[in-house]
């Protein structure tokens, strides 16, 4: 962590991300308007001091809508990342520890899941189970799990090859012990990077689903929903879709940049060593 903070780029990214997250969480404090407050007379207003992002087709303040939308988007994003990590890591580690035919089965499952186009898969699941917030979080989490499993398995295999794991076995450690006490702590860096990238993918997935109308449903609105609604009414107000679009882009971009930073910090070759 300290190494990360030393990098100026990383600090900037973290601050911006923090800002986005905090403003979303503290939405009620940031704006006097209600996200569902209809004001028929103020439709499609351009940005102004009163309405930072302008208003939508029902006169609702878009800035407020975006803030509250952030709560949903980030909420689903966070929840699905957690689900993806828990399921994926358990899946990948189990395969790595067991090797043999269990490994084969688990990985073929992952491969098959990955072979199905993501959006298609998502559509089918949403159609089957409905698009409530919880469902969306679970569906997106499960979508991301197979890739997570693959990568977690890789990371675990790398550690399992090392001599300190052999040393642990030589001292009488059980497989579970080895996993928890030796492998997991050493894979945390790689998993952290993975989690960050998963978060980016999750937000994008949710935004995409909402954009095609299968994600968060009105009157709730995530950024994707707002983007969708704005896109439908783009001739009436150019401003409408721009801000949700920018925010989605920013969030994903910042998360990806953060993952990059984490990657460089955690790369052991980044350690400067002067040897003769």
């Amino acid at each position: 962590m300290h190494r990360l903070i030393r990098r100026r780029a990383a600090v900037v990214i973290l601050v911006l991300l923090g800002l986005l997250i905090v403003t979303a969480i503290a939405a009620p404090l940031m704006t006097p308007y209600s996200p569902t407050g209809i004001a028929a007379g103020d439709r499609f207003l351009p940005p102004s001091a009163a309405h930072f992002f302008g208003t939508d087709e029902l006169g609702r303040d878009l800035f407020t809508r975006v803030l509250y939308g952030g709560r949903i988007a980030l909420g689903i994003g966070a929840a699905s990342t957690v689900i993806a990590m828990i399921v994926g890591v358990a899946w990948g580690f189990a395969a790595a520890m067991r090797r043999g035919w269990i490994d084969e089965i688990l990985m073929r499952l992952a491969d098959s899941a990955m072979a199905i186009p993501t959006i298609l898969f998502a559509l089918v699941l949403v159609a089957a189970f409905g698009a409530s917030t919880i469902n969306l979080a679970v569906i997106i989490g499960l979508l991301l799990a197979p890739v997570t499993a693959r990568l977690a398995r890789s990371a675990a295999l790398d550690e399992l090859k090392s001599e300190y794991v052999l040393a642990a076995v030589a001292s009488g450690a059980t497989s579970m012990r080895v996993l928890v006490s030796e492998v997991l702590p050493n894979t945390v860096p790689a998993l952290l990077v993975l989690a960050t990238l998963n978060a980016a993918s999750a937000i994008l997935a949710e935004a995409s689903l909402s954009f095609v109308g299968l994600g968060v449903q009105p009157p709730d609105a995530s950024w994707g929903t707002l983007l969708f609604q704005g896109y439908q009414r783009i001739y009436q107000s150019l401003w409408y879709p721009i801000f949700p679009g920018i925010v989605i882009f920013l969030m994903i971009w910042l998360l990806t940049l953060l993952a990059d930073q984490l990657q460089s910090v955690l790369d052991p070759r980044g350690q400067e060593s002067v040897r003769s």
Partner: protein
Amino acid sequence: MTVGAPGAALPTADTPTAMLDVRNLRVSFETRTGVVTPVRDISFRVAPGQRVGLVGESGSGKSLTALALMRLIHPPGRVGGQVLLNGRDVLQLGGRELAKLRGGQVAMIYQDPMSALNPVQTIGHQVVEGIRIHMNLGAREARDRAAMLLTDVGLRDPLRRMKSYPHEFSGGMRQRVMIAMAMSADPVLLIADEPTTALDVTTQALVLETLMRMVEERGSAVILITHDLGVAAGFCEDIQVMYAGRIVERAEASRLFRHPVHPYAEALLRSVCDLDVNIAAELPAIAGQPPLPSALPSGCAFHPRCPYALDICRTVEPAPLRIGAGDAMAECHLAEERVADAVASGDR
């Protein structure tokens, strides 16, 4: 043995036979915690055809010295001083001249032959390529020369073997191929950086034998960098012992092994475990460990581990003391007395 004035300057470039004249070579790195100088103002000369050993442990700076000579140190590393090869300063050469120099007049072989050889090109291709870059030969002549070189290093049936890839060769053979490539343009100086460290001891013996023969036939000078005193003993005429970025002693090989002047050289020699070591006794060891370039002791870098350390050793860095008429020297406050003792005890 006579003793020169303490701190006397080394002979200047006007002195004949100094093919390589390294003056105040320094390598430093900028790190987050400050500037670290793993090679601290070292000077030495190499005569044509001379075989010099650079011996040291980790943190001594020996490998960085080799890289600095070939100008292979890149930022954030910085190199200072002069490296005069037949009068011209290598550190000041432009890009094209430098490219001509490397592999031509000055060649280098490394510890890990796999990283020096391109795994996707045949051995033949690489050797021939090396030849054609530095010599003006047509394809056929270059190939013939390559075959001759490979035979010289002990590869049987070279024309057929040239079609193989590096991974099809054993470590010892790859190392010998690297020697062939390095010698292909008849360099005046060969820098060998731990060439046998990664090899089995039996293979090592063969490779060193090959190397010796190749350099003797061509009259190339060699700087052999190694941590293994035994390897240096068998191969080098003169040996320089490095510690914490300085050359602490330089002497002709036989004299060094019989009467080391610098306490570190003495302790190092004693701590080597060879086949005649007394089993019943404890192995002589040097307490502590070699210092990191970022945390050098004050005064003489060896003083914390030196059994003879005086107060002055803690505060003042010793200056080089010339020993005898040649290049022999030692950097130690006690050098004069130790040399006198050696004379008294009947050294030649």
